């Protein structure tokens, strides 16, 4: 049901249908209001959601804490905050004694709510060689490999799948398409709302660009890292020419051949103008240098995402004034490595140093937010604590999770602090935000209390088992993955214990132990790290089980997401 009071105070909706709905709702409201006019003071059907959290410690921002005070939420916004503020009579009051209120946390790079990208048709059977031949004869659409800068997360995002994040106190996230070099335009979403029109806080936020190292089947250009860099540069030069052609046409149309419309080159224009930041997925310092070089060449506004080894170039990041969305998905010893297998000192050093990266960026004066990467939300928060244990101040950690994230994502006026007028995204905890035994008690998103126990209605493909009872995922699964490089076969061996899943994912690329695995209802989520010659590629497997069949998606590092189907051996 549309909330009547939200049209004025909340963010503007660009959806004409939503406006029509609210006009209809407004007339209904007027009718009801006139009928109920004499009953003011009692509960009203149309009452805005009003909450007050009283007697709580309120961490309004990384820099200010109110030892004991109250927050009032009305119409989705923070109405008031302070020590001695008036609690409105119509507020639902939550006694915050012993609790701490924080600004809602922001996960600054995810693909929450976005569908798996379309896949090339793979031949049924015949193995890899047939797949090669088929791909060469019938090449996959270039978008799989090159991406599409006009792809919009805001157009595609759907609700659902956010229970774990919200239970960890994450209330908003940047969500970005992940397929191809120019993956598309990201959106800042609140992790609640019936559809994209209610979820999107701001869009587009940035253009996502990734240095995909791999080539497409059939040998499409670019098939190397250096080719990818050249492709990105050429695309921006093409966008410059496109701009020039269209500007000339705008000046004088008569007698001039009309330039072609190209949605991809048109989509690069805001980035070229500096209106839309370009988010480069770059973990290594090599990738970061490449990204900053490209940003310099085309005067782009870069955001560096990942930045696992960004601390090695902290001064460069500071000098270029490039904000960072730092991954806390710290490198781990590959799970398939035997206990006695040796690794190089460099690898060991990198693993020991990575958790200190946040502290080093802070010291260098680099502005950064955090991204969960492939981590489960609860592990994400645990790794914030790990960064704190490795020298990051609590204030800087909170800033990264709140105000910095909001600023970097262009929503500094809307999110990131508990201030009157900002969007009412709040987390109420039993204690220190990142401490191990702290419990999240309440979460508010857009001023609505989020039910932390009951999962949201699952999107489209729901399983045979209802939410609440966990399905049985144990067994040997044969998976058929529709990758951009053709059909791949994988074997997934799973053992289950309550919500926890353990096991092994095997393929021709190697065998990886499941690092974290969970099942909720019929939905499984697994992470694994595949060691490919010293380079680890993070895999995230999500899927829905129906009886003895399974379907879902595998995200492999920056290679994008591939859909899979599979069946259980009996």
């Amino acid at each position: 049901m549309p909330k009547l009071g939200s049209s004025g105070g909340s963010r503007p909706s660009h959806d004409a249908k939503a406006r029509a709905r609210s006009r209809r709702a407004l007339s209904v409201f007027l009718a009801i209001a006139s009928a109920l006019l004499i009953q003011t003071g009692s509960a009203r059907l149309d009452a805005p959601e009003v909450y007050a959290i009283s007697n709580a410690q309120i961490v309004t921002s990384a820099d200010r804490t109110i030892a004991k005070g109250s927050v009032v939420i009305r119409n989705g916004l923070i109405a008031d905050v302070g020590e001695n503020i008036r609690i409105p009579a119509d507020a639902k009051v939550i006694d915050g004694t012993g609790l701490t209120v924080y600004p809602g946390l922001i996960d600054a790079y995810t693909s929450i709510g976005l569908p798996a990208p379309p896949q090339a048709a793979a031949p049924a059977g015949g193995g890899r060689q047939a797949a090669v031949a088929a791909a060469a004869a019938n090449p996959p659409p270039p978008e799989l490999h090159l991406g599409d800068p006009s792809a919009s997360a805001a157009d595609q995002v759907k609700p659902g799948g956010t229970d774990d994040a919200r239970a960890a106190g994450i209330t908003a996230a940047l969500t970005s398409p992940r397929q191809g070099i120019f993956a598309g335009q990201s959106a800042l979403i609140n992790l609640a709302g019936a559809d994209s029109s209610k979820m999107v806080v701001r869009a587009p936020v940035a253009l996502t660009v990734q240095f995909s190292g791999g080539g497409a089947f059939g040998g499409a250009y670019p098939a190397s890292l250096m080719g990818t860099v050249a492709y990105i540069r050429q695309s921006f030069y093409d966008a410059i020419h496109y701009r020039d052609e269209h500007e000339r046409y705008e000046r004088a149309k008569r007698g001039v051949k009309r330039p072609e419309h190209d949605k991809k080159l048109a989509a690069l224009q805001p980035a070229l103008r500096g209106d839309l930041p370009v988010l480069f997925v770059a973990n290594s310092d090599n990738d970061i240098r490449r990204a900053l070089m490209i940003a310099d060449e085309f005067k782009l506004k870069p955001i560096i995402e990942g930045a696992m080894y960004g601390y090695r170039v902290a001064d460069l990041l500071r000098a270029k004034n490039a904000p960072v969305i730092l991954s806390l998905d710290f490198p781990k010893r590959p799970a398939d490595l035997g206990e006695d297998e040796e690794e190089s000192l460099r690898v060991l050093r990198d693993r020991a140093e990575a958790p200190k990266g946040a502290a080093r960026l802070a010291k260098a004066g680099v502005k950064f937010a955090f991204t969960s990467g492939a981590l489960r939300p609860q592990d994400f928060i645990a790794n914030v604590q790990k960064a704190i244990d490795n020298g990051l101040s609590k204030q800087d950690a909170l800033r990264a999770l709140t105000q910095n994230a909001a600023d970097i994502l262009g929503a500094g006026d809307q999110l990131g602090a508990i201030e009157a007028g900002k969007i009412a995204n709040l987390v109420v905890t039993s204690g220190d935000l990142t401490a191990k035994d702290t419990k999240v008690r309440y979460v508010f998103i857009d001023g609505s209390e989020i039910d932390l126990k009951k999962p949201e209605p699952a999107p489209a493909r729901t399983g045979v088992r209802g939410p609440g009872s966990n399905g049985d995922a144990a067994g040997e699964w044969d998976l058929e993955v529709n990758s951009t490089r053709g059909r791949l076969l994988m074997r997934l061996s799973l053992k289950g214990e309550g919500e926890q899943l353990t096991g092994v994912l095997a393929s021709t690329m190697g065998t990886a132990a499941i690092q974290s695995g969970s099942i909720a209802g019929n939905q499984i989520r697994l992470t694994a790290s595949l060691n490919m010659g010293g380079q680890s590629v993070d895999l995230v497997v999500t899927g829905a089980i129906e009886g003895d069949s399974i379907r879902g998606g595998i995200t492999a590092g920056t290679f994008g997401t591939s859909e899979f189907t599979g069946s259980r051996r009996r």
Partner: protein
Amino acid sequence: MNNHSFIKSRMKWVCGIVLSLMLTTGLAGSSLAQAIASANGVESIPPDSGGSAAPAAQSRETLIKNATILTASHGTIKNGSILIRAGKIVEVGQGVKAAGANALVIDATGKYVTPGIIDCHSHTAVEGEVNEGSLSVTAMVRIRDVIDPYSLNIYRELAGGLTTVNILHGSANSIGGQNAVVKLKQGRPVDEWFVTGAPPGVKFALGENPKRSSSQGQGAAAAPRRYPATRMGVEETIRKAFVQAKDYMREWQDYEAKKGADPSLIAPRRDLMLDALVEILQGKRFIHSHCYRADEILMLLNLGDEMGFRVQTLQHVLEGYKVAKEIAAHNTGGSTFADFWSYKMEAFDAIPYNAALMTDKGVNVSINSDSDERARRLYLDAAKAIKYGGVTEEQALRMITLNPAMQLGVEKRTGSIDVGKDADLVIFSSHPFSVYTVPEMTFIEGVVYFDRKTDIERRDALKIEKAELVKREREARGGPAAAPRRGEPVPPPKDDERK
């Protein structure tokens, strides 16, 4: 995982296209490379930018004294000294004294000093694929974008006296990508590695590699081949690219000529691939062309005459001895192997006299590695030119110093021990052409980037550091904190033995 299976599995995942190419071009000896690397005695890791041992940006004033100096340009100086100031050689000869009291003085009595060694054909420290194998003309891709400064091979090369390398795109394409001429300043930001003033270049390739690059699979499963599939097609691919480049050049020249008079004109579309080819036509960019056979060498030289480009170096050029006069007449250099041949049909006519015979006919000749393994002992490969071809010691030394410097257009800065040049130097324990010699120190612009003594001293500390890190991780995992296993060799790296 051994190197071969790593490459295979990576191929499956990343890109099948270059597998056959890698197996035929330069992969030979890569597992050997690892074996030799461990036997080389250089097992420790280089200082990285995060460590305290990172080399300084600016050199100390340094005096190397009492050495036998092989200048590569003006003979041998016995009991000689070299004074280095601000990264440059400021004095060379007998009786040179250090001016400053704080100067670093190295007594090199009984030792030999040579110019820093230059490898005119390398694929070292390339991140990702070394070939952009999707197309046969890829002059838009740049090696400079993908240099991995952390590659362990760089340190091994420094330990072999290498200071400057020409990092080339692979040989899968008729016209490959842009090369990078770098000094191996490991530990310094990679932006400082590029030799300023070095003319840019593009890798070309003739023969087997470009013509069979896309063949994969067998029989019905074979993917269609990429054009070109014959030597004729390679020639035509290169000709066509330059025809296109000339059109593009004219388009820009027209624009530049008319834009003042007609403000409504807009600049033509900038094409990064054609930009590079235009620079070749304008003489601003070098061609370094992979080749083996005499017929294809003549084809490229003639095509250059027809289209108006000059070939700066012929790489490998194994049959260069058959057409040395023609090569010399084109003022083209030859960069060859010492004694590596018969690894494929088109390499059957290679002979170890090639370097000497081409030198006799007036070709500027260098001896290159094309290998992270041979790159560590180019001084021994140069010595082979004396054994097989009877060149002089200085001629042989020039093949890995001054001659490649000239081929890369950096001879004003490096390649010989002369006043005013960069202090790129190697101190050898004995004569560099002795099989018993060991490079002891390597200087780039006066800064020590390898010091065997320091390396040996650091090994124990590094082993302890490693054991400590392993122990801490095991404790964190809750596993048994096994005793550190001292004295075990560090395994060779898995990630940077690439071609």
